[in-house]
């Protein structure tokens, strides 16, 4: 089995699904001839042609809006937004239309659209190129939001997203694009949407993370007996797996690189409070970025959650 990085794994998923299903079309800024700025779509245009791998004008609202129309007509568009910080002009099309097509047509139209975008900090770029604003999208009913944590889940989630009948926002942790290599099988395997993965098992504490933070969490928790939940689908998130683990361990720490206020961690903590509060032996803690725009350069060290901060939170709940 080939050891692939995440860029290659996503590329493989797209390649296989495009070969299997001619409704799948890829579109975005420079995704065709240039293969995308991170080269995720490299080679697809040569293989599947310019009709199916479409270089669009620089127009995010247009990309997502047009993809919504294509999806409503039965195609399976995969729209790339070059960086998550560029997605906001497309937010209107996604939230006002893509997300509501099914409900507005009372189930007669669906919107099997995948919007891919690199997200997250740690690539030494400024603010808009390092955004982690998943919570905004988790707040929109009708869209599913997923974030792979490595090459293996990247392929499985992409295939599942492509087969899903609803719009899926697929967040690619930019920092991990070429950082991790894993064995990624050829051929079909689906990472079920809405289902979290137990990345590590333990007894004393549950750590919940996703995307680029998972790698950092796994390193940080090595000396602890911890359940580590790789959320994978951020909306709707797998409350069942989270609650089962918290009922077992009695402690929960949520780690995300997005800012704290109204982050997804707040929703998870509230869910734990609603459904498992009597199992808790300590307050639920969040390790997150501070409530500021992503800072530049060296200051990023004071922004992204560190292994020390994660361990400090674990110690706090364990010693509570």
């Amino acid at each position: 089995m080939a050891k692939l990085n995440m860029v290659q794994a996503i590329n493989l998923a797209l390649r296989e699904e495009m070969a299997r299903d001619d409704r799948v079309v890829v579109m975005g800024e420079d995704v065709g001839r240039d293969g995308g700025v991170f080269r995720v779509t490299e080679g697809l245009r040569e293989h599947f042609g310019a009709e199916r791998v479409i270089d669009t004008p620089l127009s995010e609202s247009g990309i997502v809006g047009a993809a919504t129309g294509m999806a409503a007509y039965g195609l399976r568009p995969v729209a790339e937004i070059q960086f998550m910080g560029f997605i906001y002009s497309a937010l209107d099309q996604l939230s006002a239309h893509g997300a509501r097509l099914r409900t507005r047509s009372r189930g007669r139209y669906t919107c099997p659209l995948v919007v891919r975008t690199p997200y997250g900090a740690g690539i030494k770029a400024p603010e808009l190129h390092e955004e982690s604003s998943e919570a905004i999208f988790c707040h929109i009913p009708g869209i599913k939001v997923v974030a792979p944590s490595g090459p293996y889940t990247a392929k499985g989630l992409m295939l599942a997203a492509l087969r899903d009948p609803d719009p899926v926002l697929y967040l690619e942790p930019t920092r991990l694009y070429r950082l991790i290599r894993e064995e990624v099988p050829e051929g079909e395997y689906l990472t079920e949407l809405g289902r979290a993965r137990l990345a590590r098992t333990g007894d004393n504490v549950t750590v919940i993370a996703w995307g680029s933070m998972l790698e950092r969490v796994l390193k940080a928790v090595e000396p602890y007996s911890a359940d580590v939940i790789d959320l994978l689908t951020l909306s709707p998130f797998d409350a069942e797996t989270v609650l089962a683990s918290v009922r077992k361990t009695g402690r929960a720490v949520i780690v995300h690189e997005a800012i704290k206020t109204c982050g997804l961690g707040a929703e998870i903590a509230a869910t734990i409070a609603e459904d498992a509060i009597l199992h808790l032996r300590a307050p639920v803690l969040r390790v997150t970025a501070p409530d500021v725009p992503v800072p530049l350069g060296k200051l990023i060290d004071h922004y992204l959650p560190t292994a020390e901060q994660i361990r400090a939170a674990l110690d706090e709940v364990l010693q509570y």
Partner: protein
Amino acid sequence: METKLRMVLPDQELLKLYEQMFLSREFEESCAEQYTKGHITGFLHLYSGQEAVAVGATAGLHRDDYILSAYREHAQAIVRGAEPKRVMAELFGKATGLCKGKGGSMHLFDPAINFMGGYAIVGGQFPISVGLAFASRYRGEDRVTACFFGDGAVNQGTFHESLNWARLWELPVLFICENNFYGIGTEVHRSSALASIHRRTCGYDIPSEKVDGMDVIAVYKAVKHAAEKVRESGLPYFIEAATYRFRGHSMADPGKYRSAAEHELWKSRDPIPGYAKRLLEEGITTREALDAIEARCKATVEEAVVFAEQSPWPEESEVWEDIYV
């Protein structure tokens, strides 16, 4: 026939244009080196090749006119009056930078020189230009807002929204499109139904013209004339400057989508040596005088690098600064 340079500007001003273009090029090429060394990180979009646009246009504007640009804006800021060393320190992410080392290459900003920002979101600056122009008219100021952008930006909704508003509300905005013919790797004719960008403005009843963006004098004359028109009429105007970037979209882009022949053709029209030749031919300066200017620019850039290297990093507490009052 080309206009004689002395008919356009006095000698000292003509030489200043040369110095600004040469300084811009030196600065950008030094940035490339510092990026390779890892001193500048992230995404670095260099202006080499396009100097005649920023330099000619800025010379055609008043000092109190607003300038907004996109993310290829180091030269725009420096030519407008930002200190090169503070721009370099900003690119390094140092505390002494133009924006405390917190904005970086794409977010230069200095209200003291009416440089109202580099914008990393393509087309983000259009509506802000409209708002600035509205505010200056509201206050009864005689100020033009010059909004620079690239050919890629003209397909964003904000472009069309803002042209309409500028004309509808009769606002003094001078739109300056730096058409370098590529939005990253996509040629203008593959992204725009009407590739002749200045002709798009007829839908908004905004007069427009195209100018040779490799000719600093042509840009200067066009912008000066246009800015006067905008100031007198209070109405928007649109200039498309045809230019070329000699490097990739950013330092991460090898730019393989452009043919060597095309590249060479544009290189032969490099605005800096071309202008030097004119200055010499028309007897405005001597080779020795140009050498002295060039040496001065090189020294300025070297000082900027040393300043940036020796400057401190921002304190951790800076993460929390400038978010709210």
